[in-house]
């Protein structure tokens, strides 16, 4: 099947050359996804999607442009390529735009990444999908406290995609991926008109890799119920733990300033920190594109360069930037790759319960809201919800609070990682314990004057 896509990608390169592009790279992709949502005792929504499209990068007379289309009718495609090439000729030349060095595209990983489950994809069954979605809702409603449920939804989804890429420098690549997921969403009654929502899921590259549906449904209900009665705590500096399922959001803010564009455009507070400690010695992270079954696993990157594992943080010391060919050239550096693949953390010895026991008193963060991180300064600010922990145990729910600081201080305050890497994301981050962190919440009284 992919051979057909690769043939199509190469055809597009031929069209691009015919119309005057010196170099080009083309990706052709096709995907299918199916989702069933079962809500409050009946079928609510089914979605069946089929995608088929092309993305094309052009290098014309030293000028650059990039394009995508889902209109692949032959006459439309020829015209699309001709017009985009004509458009490119109006741009300013840019000597830093070029295809990756072919040497960087060779030697791609040959092993099986196990990111496509052929039997699992072949076993697609709409009836089974409905049964699964219903079972998710039933499980949510079987949990303790379920009488407080206002609405519960089970969602069962799967997708499969294939893509082929070719470039005029000789690079050729093909990949297929699949993913399967089970999701439960539960709203419950609270004081007044409040209806907190809880949500849980599991996901895997293989159909058989999904855990039991019952656990997903019950967990969603538990997560909704535990937010009831949530209120802010007083502002102050507290120790805190960020649960694995949400810690990736905070960590992604530390990655944003490592990108080539941020560095070259002087919007990175980490631009001069390669080789320096920017986090505590507890933080060791490896970028591993070859992780078996990983959601970020790939043998070649978006530019066609062969992927390879690299150290990101080693005992808190920053070891790499994410540089594509373009920004590496502008910066006079060697390219790495444009963006993270799978991030694998050196775990600690204790699970979330153990982390809470070690913290004793503080805030356990289980959800973020809104927020912003300034990649130029490292300042960040984000709304949180979770639990107040005392005696090593969650004692009351917390909401409408804010966590703020500067990344250079925050990550130095990382005192421990959990033993619980989050399995349903390409960022396999464990729960994180910090001490101390600045929170703002409720003040004893609003200042007079209004």
């Amino acid at each position, binding site marked *: 099947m992919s051979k057909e896509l690769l043939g199509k990608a190469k055809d597009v390169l031929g069209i691009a050359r015919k119309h005057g592009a010196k170099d080009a790279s083309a990706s052709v992709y096709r995907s299918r996804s199916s989702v069933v949502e079962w809500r409050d005792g009946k079928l609510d929504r089914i979605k069946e999607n089929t995608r088929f499209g092309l993305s094309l990068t052009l290098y014309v007379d030293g000028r650059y442009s990039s394009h995508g289309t889902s209109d692949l009718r032959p006459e439309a495609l020829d015209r699309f390529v001709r017009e985009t090439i004509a458009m490119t000729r109006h741009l300013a030349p840019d000597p830093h735009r070029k295809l990756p060095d072919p040497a960087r595209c060779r030697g791609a990983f040959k092993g099986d990444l196990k990111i496509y489950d052929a039997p699992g994809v072949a076993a697609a069954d709409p009836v089974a999908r409905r049964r699964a979605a219903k079972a998710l809702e039933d499980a949510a409603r079987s949990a303790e406290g379920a009488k407080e449920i206002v609405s519960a939804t089970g969602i069962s989804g799967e997708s499969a995609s294939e893509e082929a890429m070719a470039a005029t420098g000789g690079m050729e690549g093909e990949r297929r991926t699949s993913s399967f997921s089970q999701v439960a969403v539960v709203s419950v009654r609270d004081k007044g008109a409040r209806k907190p*929502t809880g949500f849980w*899921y599991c996901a895997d590259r293989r159909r058989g890799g999904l855990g039991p549906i019952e656990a997903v449904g019950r967990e969603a209900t538990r997560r909704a119920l535990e937010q009831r009665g949530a209120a802010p705590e007083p502002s102050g500096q507290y120790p805190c733990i960020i649960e694995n399922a949400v810690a990736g959001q905070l960590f992604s803010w530390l990655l944003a300033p490592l990108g080539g564009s941020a560095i070259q455009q002087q919007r990175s507070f980490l631009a001069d920190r390669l080789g320096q400690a920017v986090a505590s010695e507890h933080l060791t992270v490896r970028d591993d594109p070859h992780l078996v079954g990983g959601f970020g696993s790939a043998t070649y990157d978006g530019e066609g360069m062969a992927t390879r594992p690299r150290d990101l943080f080693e005992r808190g010391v920053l070891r790499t930037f994410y540089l594509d060919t373009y920004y590496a050239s502008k910066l006079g550096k060697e390219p790495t790759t444009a963006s993270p693949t799978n991030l694998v953390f050196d775990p600690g010895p204790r699970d979330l319960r153990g982390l809470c026991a070690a913290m004793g008193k503080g805030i356990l963060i289980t959800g973020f809201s809104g927020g912003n991180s300034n990649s130029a300064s490292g300042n960040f600010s984000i709304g949180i919800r979770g639990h107040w922990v005392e005696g090593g145990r969650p004692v009351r729910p917390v909401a409408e609070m804010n966590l703020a600081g500067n990344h250079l201080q925050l990550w130095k305050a990382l005192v421990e990682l959990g033993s619980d890497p989050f399995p349903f994301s390409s960022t396999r981050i464990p729960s994180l314990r910090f001490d101390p962190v600045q929170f703002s*919440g409720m003040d004893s009284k609003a200042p007079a004057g209004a």
Partner: protein
Amino acid sequence: MKVAGAGGAVVTLPVMAAGCGPKAHLGAGARPAGAHQTYFDQFGLGRELIEKTLRRALGRGGDFAEVFCQHKISHWLGMEDGQVDRAYTQVRLGAGIRVLKGDATGFAYCEDLTEEALLRTAAAAATVADGTPIARPRSLVAVPHVSQYQVKLPWSEVGVERKLPIVQRAEKLARSRDGRIVKVTVFLEDDVSRILVATSEGRLVEDDQPMTTLRVSCTGRSQGVTETSGQSVASMDDLSFYTDEVIRKCAHEAADYTTLLFGAGSPPVGNVPVVLAPGVTGILLHEAIGHGMEADFNRKGTSIYAGRIGKRVAPKDVTVLDDGTAPRRFRGSINVDDEGQAAARTVLVEGGILRSYMHDRISARHYGLKSTGSGRRQDYRYPPNPRMRNTFMLPGPSSPEEIIRSVKHGLYAEMFTNGQVMIGAGDFTFYLKHGRLIENGKLGPVVKDANLIGNGPRVLEQVDMVGSDLRMHSGAGYCGKDGQMVPVGFGLPTVRAHGMSVGGRKS
């Protein structure tokens, strides 16, 4: 894979976003002549094939079927480090087919408009029902409308050479505004979207949806400190929108919003009285309150506003509208919604009383009401949902000066860049890019980098002064919900509110 968080909705003002992604100009060719043809005839998608597709969609006993076709061409032209050296195109051509059985939705789309693909897609959507055909689609009759957003010169006929001067001028104006501006990035986006909605009830609606956006992002440097900010302008318009004045204002504001951050402190944290400046702060109205008034959350009982129609939700000076019929410079304006219903002006809150939710077809049917023309979708790849268009609060009796003067010590919130709300609980977080302190009833020093946190319905209840100076945000706002982004407009007069806490770094 991405699994979207549940029960949340997010708004972004991409003033800082670098454009990326696709475009193309590829006009599909001359508009076919003749009253019986549609734009999509040129893709082989004639009326007969649409009717056949609708029959297939109802083939398993669905109550209602709809074919939504779209051809959307978007271009981005970008400037960085003083050169216009990048361009992107995205062409989207496809059809989304929806079948309703009671409240349940079957939805499928394809990116191939051949008969075989359309019938296969219709059959997939049809499986939401599992019986034999009950309804037969009626013959399609075109429902014409007069477009409020017609442009003289479609973007599909504008070459890059005519767009270049806009981008270059914006860059030069921003860069030369202040010696501390060290980097300027400019993106010009234009979209031409042609949609067709055909329903099993026999309605055939077509619409043209132009849009353009100019984004200017700046990085400033002073005494070793880096600050970034930006500005955007958007309109459902053509090239003539970009007058010297429009470009200059956008470029200068992008630079000024960056340099004013130098030396700005952090606001005091905790509960302080907040005065919302007019304009972009309307994002708070949109997020914290508007989403809770979208009928799908209420139909499911999951909104904090469920069951509260006719009840008081705000003081008497508060009237909130969601208006799809606004002028073209308000980004959420539409001729028809994405279910083919005429745009409308919906009174959500009148004199403090909750009057209406925003409805699409499903929720309107559930409540036994007419759709409010709020059924919107990102594109053919998504089923429609009740969504906001242009959301704003009508002006009130107070002068802006009087409102500021009434606060001894507080925060004047001027620029929000993003926000999020938990729709069931109503809790929100908004990021304040910059604002001013209010000291002894006067505007004081600039403050930056803080979150405003609170509960939407509670804040609405505590709005106690509404200014006479309604202003609409003029930039490129997007709203995200159910994994779909749609352009929206919003606005607010100067408003005094309570019950929010300011979260930031301790200064």
